[in-house]
């Protein structure tokens, strides 16, 4: 059971010329068990939305609210948000030299659950998660994301999604840079997650390709820091045929 509610969210970043507003009032509710796709052109603010929900220090919230089952997400620290049940699969996962994947996963699992996982089942769970995402078991010994190919980084994010099993997952362009086989493997992972009761997904993507494997309940078109249109899965087909041009040509006011 979980609902992520974003209301009139306004976010800016600091630039040399002062603050620059990127999100200009985003309202979106991910109801219990729903999958929402956000599609939009480069630079429209999709990652900004994802990072702001996760609490990245680069972004300043200037207005609006984000709640998870009524709890004020914006008042929580980054790690509290994760422990409350939010997960962000990043567009550009970060390298952490010298920290092994297995140590990282165990530390994260312990933090999320509030207790260390049972050793025997945990090792099995990790191996299964890696295997299902076509990652060699030797990944456990490698440093987090260091020297991983683009595709391996993305698959590693989804392995974490499955192991940490949050309430709501935000996937920021997890599909980009994947070949068709890797895309299927990633989609299967997300679908296993979704098949559980009450899991919410916010799937950010630039392309409709992944939506053939992960069918969203709702599609939102994101342009210039706002949701420009929303609809059902058919909206994705329309975008596939027509692109974003029609939204970009609409004057954005202001």
């Amino acid at each position, binding site marked *: 059971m979980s609902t992520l509610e974003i209301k009139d969210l306004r976010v800016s970043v600091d630039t040399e010329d002062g603050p620059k507003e990127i999100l200009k009032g985003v309202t979106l509710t991910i109801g219990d068990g729903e999958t929402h796709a956000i599609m939009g052109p480069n630079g429209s603010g999709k990652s900004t939305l994802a990072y702001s929900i996760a609490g990245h220090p680069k972004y300043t919230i200037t207005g609006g609210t984000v709640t998870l089952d009524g709890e004020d997400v914006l008042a929580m*620290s980054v*790690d509290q948000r994760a422990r409350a049940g939010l997960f962000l699969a990043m567009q550009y996962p970060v390298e952490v030299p010298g920290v092994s994947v297995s*140590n990282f996963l165990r530390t994260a699992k312990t933090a999320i659950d509030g207790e260390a996982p049972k050793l025997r089942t945990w090792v099995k769970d990790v191996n299964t998660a890696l295997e299902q995402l076509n990652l060699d078991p030797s990944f456990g010994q490698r440093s987090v994301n260091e020297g991983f190919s683009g595709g391996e980084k993305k698959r590693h994010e989804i392995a974490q999604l499955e192991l940490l099993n949050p309430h709501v997952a935000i996937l920021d362009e997890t599909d980009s840079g994947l070949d068709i086989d890797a895309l299927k493997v990633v989609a299967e992972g997300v679908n296993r997650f979704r098949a559980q009761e009450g899991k919410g997904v916010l799937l950010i993507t630039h392309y409709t390709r992944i939506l053939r494997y992960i069918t969203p309940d709702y599609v939102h078109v994101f342009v210039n820091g706002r949701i420009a249109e929303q609809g059902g899965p058919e909206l994705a087909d329309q975008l596939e045929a027509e692109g974003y041009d029609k939204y970009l040509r609409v004057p954005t006011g202001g």
Partner: protein
Amino acid sequence: MTLTDNPVADAIETTAPGTVLSHLHPVGSFEVADHEVPTGREEIWRFTPLKRLRGLHSDAGYGAGATSSTWNTPDGVRIASVDGDEARGLRGVSGLVPNNRFVARVLAEVPSTLLVDVPAELEVTEPIVVDLTGSDASVTEAGHVALRFGAHSRAVVVLNHVGHAALAQVVEVKVGDGAQVSVISLQDWDDDSVHLTHHEATVGRDASYRHVAISFGGSVVRMDSNVSYAGPGGAAELLGLYFADEGQHIEHRLFADHTAPKTKSHVVYKGALQGQGAHTVWVGNVLIRKVAEGIETFEENRNLVLTDGCRADSVPNLEIETGEIEGAGHASATGRFDDEQLFYLRSRGIDEPEARRLVVHGFFNDLIRKIGVPSLQEKLMATVELELAKNVLKDLD
């Protein structure tokens, strides 16, 4: 994080005429009188707080008996404190000709030498551990250590410095042809200690030499670790790990002197700093002489600044006298915690102190794994943990 990864072109530029590099071509002498007392203005002393050295750099008297040494003796290895002619015969065994006063004084004035003698072709499986334990930092002392590894031998020697001391020291290493040798020097002194030490190694034909400097404790620790080559094909790996706390001065100077063709030097030093007045210095000198064609060298120094009030100096310096080299480069970076790394870890539920712990362990881990002595590696991980508890984690709890 500021990062400079300089390819060879940049490196050559740093050696353009007019820059001060003469300290790489000193005229050495065994005569103490040939060496002036340093003033602190000299290139090789400019970072060192001479006032805190209790005269070790100049004319402090050498007492006796405050620092004791104990060791294990694996089969076939001779370890002994020798004096008289035997000790005199070991002065300069590494090819060392003193280029400063303290080194000249140690060679001239210290009556005995701690000798570790590994015969040719002996493969010593267990580490030879020499514990040097100081009992009184108010007694200024000096010591000469000679590590002689015969041709094609294999051995690991650990010099473990602990306790209270004011020690001037010269460690000479002779690595025979084809030998494979590790020398690990651990400076884990108590807070009142001062340690001025010069390590000089000569690496034989096709031999490999790994030198590891680990400095955690002591008020002032300054180590010069030099290596030159007695024949072609030798390889030197100079590794270092240091952690400076409030008020500590930890200085490491490296010098890879490529005196033979087809030789290699690889330098990696990593340090962390925390607390008011923590100061670290890393100076990495590499000289590629005219004869040294086809050599490879890379040196790297990274510093992680954990709190305000610290200073890390990092000076790579590459001087090239031949155009015929395989590869040469250096990298130096000093920075604070990487916000992106912390964010990534925290976004997985890991709280801030734990995330910082992971990052610092990660920073040192690769290097610790390279040391190749498992018992020591575990000990070092634990020491890193203790250091972190002092500051980084405490503030956040």
